[in-house]
């Protein structure tokens, strides 16, 4: 930032000075004056092709390092789900605690937000942390940051999303870890636990009639699924992450697990993004279960998580 600003200010000042200087120095002396014909200079042209190109490449490299780091979250993150909908933000802590237009995070932890949208494209933006990310319907995007100082910071919706776009914001509260723990336990609610809610949905929507845990059902067992590589009918493999699970619920025929028939109906329009997240959380919790010998569709080489 400082580097780019310095280079830009240098060129802005240099060129402006040259223009102003020439403007007055070479002002027309008499009405029929003409200038000295100078057609060009290939050395100068080469210089001002190459030097800006090198400067530009260094700017690119500096920005690229920051960006790649931002797009690749560390492994030890505190994962919080954030759902945008016209015109409010819902956040769900790992314990299941829900907040609206508020987000509480502890100092000194790497926090990863998993972003989903119920309707149009939004963007979760915290200027004080220098982070933002679009929240796109049909996709999961993630962003991460590491709060360093307790306090309250504005967050905004940065992608225009309709009438009350400007009101779709709130506050990130950064707390000391002990305060954060106290805050979490002070308002815990067992029913809100996403794993519990997901398990309940799993039964309500009759998922459990096919996805038997012993692998002998009409559909693959979900034990050990999350994070594993799944072998598909066309011979390719895919990592079972949030996006894969979401797609398999909403569009089951998109990727068929090897050895199974495409029997599952779509749940498009029958589940909210929040319910999908609960189901995902439940499936995630099954990751710790033993994988049945047959029928999980998990690619052999990788084993379980």
């Amino acid at each position, binding site marked *: *930032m400082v580097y*780019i600003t310095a*280079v830009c200010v240098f*060129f*802005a000042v240099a*060129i402006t000075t040259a*223009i102003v200087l*020439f403007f007055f120095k*070479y*002002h*027309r002396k008499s*009405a*029929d*004056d*003409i*200038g*000295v*014909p*100078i*057609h*060009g*200079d*290939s050395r*100068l*042209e080469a210089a*001002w092709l190459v030097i*800006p*190109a090198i400067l*530009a*490449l260094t*700017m*690119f490299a500096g*920005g*690229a390092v920051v*960006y*790649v780091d*931002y*797009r*690749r979250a560390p492994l030890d993150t505190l994962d919080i789900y954030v759902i945008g909908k*016209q015109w409010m933000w819902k956040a769900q802590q790992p314990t299941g605690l829900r907040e609206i237009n508020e987000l509480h995070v502890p100092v000194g932890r790497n926090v990863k937000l998993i972003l989903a949208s119920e309707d*149009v*494209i939004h*963007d979760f933006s915290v*200027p*004080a942390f220098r982070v*933002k*990310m*679009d929240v*796109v*319907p*049909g996709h999961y*995007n993630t962003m991460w940051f590491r709060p360093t100082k307790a306090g309250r910071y*504005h967050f905004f919706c*940065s*992608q*225009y999303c*309709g*009438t009350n776009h*400007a*009101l779709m914001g709130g506050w990130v509260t950064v707390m000391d870890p002990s305060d954060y723990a106290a805050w979490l336990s002070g308002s815990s609610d067992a029913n809100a636990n996403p794993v519990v809610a997901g398990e309940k949905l799993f039964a309500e929507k009759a998922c459990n009639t096919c996805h038997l845990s012993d692998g002998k059902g009409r559909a693959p067992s979900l034990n050990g699924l999350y994070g594993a590589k799944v072998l598909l009918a066309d011979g390719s493999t895919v990592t079972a992450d949030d996006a894969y699970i979401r797609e398999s619920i909403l569009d089951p025929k998109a990727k068929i697990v090897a050895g199974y028939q495409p029997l599952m109906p779509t749940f498009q329009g029958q589940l909210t993004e929040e319910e999908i997240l609960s189901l995902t959380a439940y499936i995630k919790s099954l990751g710790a279960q033993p994988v049945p010998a047959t029928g999980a569709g998990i690619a052999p080489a990788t084993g379980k998580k």
Partner: protein
Amino acid sequence: MSLTPSPGHELPSEHYLNATYGIRSWLLTTDHKRIALLYLASVTFFFFIGGTFATMIRIHLLTPNGYLVTPENYNKLFTMHGVAMIFFFLIPSIPAVLGNFLIPLMIGAKDLAFPKINLLSWYIYLVGGGFVLYSFSTGGLDTGWTFYTPLSSVYSNSAVTPAVLGVFINGFSSILTGLNFIVTIHTMRAPGMTWFRLPLFVWAHYATSIIFILGTPVIAITLLLAGLERMFHLGFFNPVLGGDPILFQHLFWFYSHPAVYIMILPAMGVISEIIPTFSRKTIFGYTFIAGSSIAIAVIGFFVWAHHMFLTGQSPYAALTFSLLSYLVAIPSAVKVFNWTSTLYKGSISYDTPMLYALGFIGLFLIGGLTGLFLACLGLDIHIHDTYFVVAHFHYIMVGGAVMGYVGGLHFWWPKITGRLYPESLARIAAVTLFVGFNLTFFPQFILGYLGMPRRYHSYPPEFQVLNVMSTAGASILALGYLLPMIYLVWSMRYGKVAGRNPWPATGLEWQTDSPPLTENFDVTPEVTWEPYDYNNRPELGLAVTGEPSLAPAHGDD
């Protein structure tokens, strides 16, 4: 001053304005000069509409909670401001008005290659504009000029369908104009007018026409798909119907990023004419300026996804597009360096077009350099979708393209009307515009860096001071635009008669009457000189100093 015409000037007895009379002679004309004036009237109309919306936006943002309009209406204001200004003013302004008028004159032709198609382009523009005005007046449009799906195709309750149709139809006008220019430049150059004797204005329009032809069909199809999704629920972009909203953004920016170059390249062409004329010397690095226009047009097609760094696109794609975005900055920098060098040892006058040209360089410089911040991946995370972006593209589009357009209008006004505008009033207006512009948009860079997001009808109170500054600047800017509108119209009747070549300038368009004949030239001219070569043009009546230059303009590049 060179501006004072010698007393003997009289308007020619016969010219394109008095060749025929009556409304039919205008509405059915195939004369590129009259069609240019029809465009002048219609783009000015849309500029006025877009400007009115902008005024209301700035008044509304005076206070954090904004009392002028409701959130819904605020969203409609900035959307309609963008649609009117971009699709119906900026994109057609220089090509369809100045390009239309000047390209045949500059290359020594009687008209464009397809005069009837030229007229057809204007009617298509009117039909497209009609649909858009219908949308504005029956519910308005609140999707943002970017029409992002699924907001535009599913959720918006405003009149999206007619607006999308209007922009779709208007696209054909651009395509036909581009086609017309390319064929004309290839086939209708006068004897001796080789490619490297073409004025740089023509090179810039050639590059622009390439974008018109290759880019416009993509936006047309994209908006049609969005319209079909809205009307018939065909799933292209809506994830509920199996579509992908990110696909829309790829298609949209594939045109809409090059569209920025549609706006700025012709302005660069104008500047490349003004600077040598008012420095009275040949342009520095002719081939590099011409080549950089083509380079910008080509590389400009490969940078579109820098609008999408934070949509969740693959980091590898982001790296590629960031690198290419830095590359497209190089040919722009080359132009700025060459313009500045052209001033060196010139014979510089302070005439109004020159003030606009130098203002253009300054504002384009700031607009271009701030693009380096946005192309930087790490920085873009913070300033993406903030007022920093708003300031950046206004510096390019208004500071660049509009300054170029208004400067060009002044420069060629004597050719278009046969009369001079009032010089001192025009200089005051040019300085007013420059000051007002900077006061309006520079504070927005700071607002963006502090984190104020775009398209907000209300904002936290800490941003108020800078917003008030911006609104104050906008009122100066508005005055700067009203002044030329008034005195240019006044000068059409009362301005001093200009004569053929008041500046004097070297281009072919200045070798014929002001205003020109309907056929442009009595006899087809033959070109025996290099562009902007003041030293070998004794007929201009200027004092030739130093040794006459024998090398061709591009000889030692």
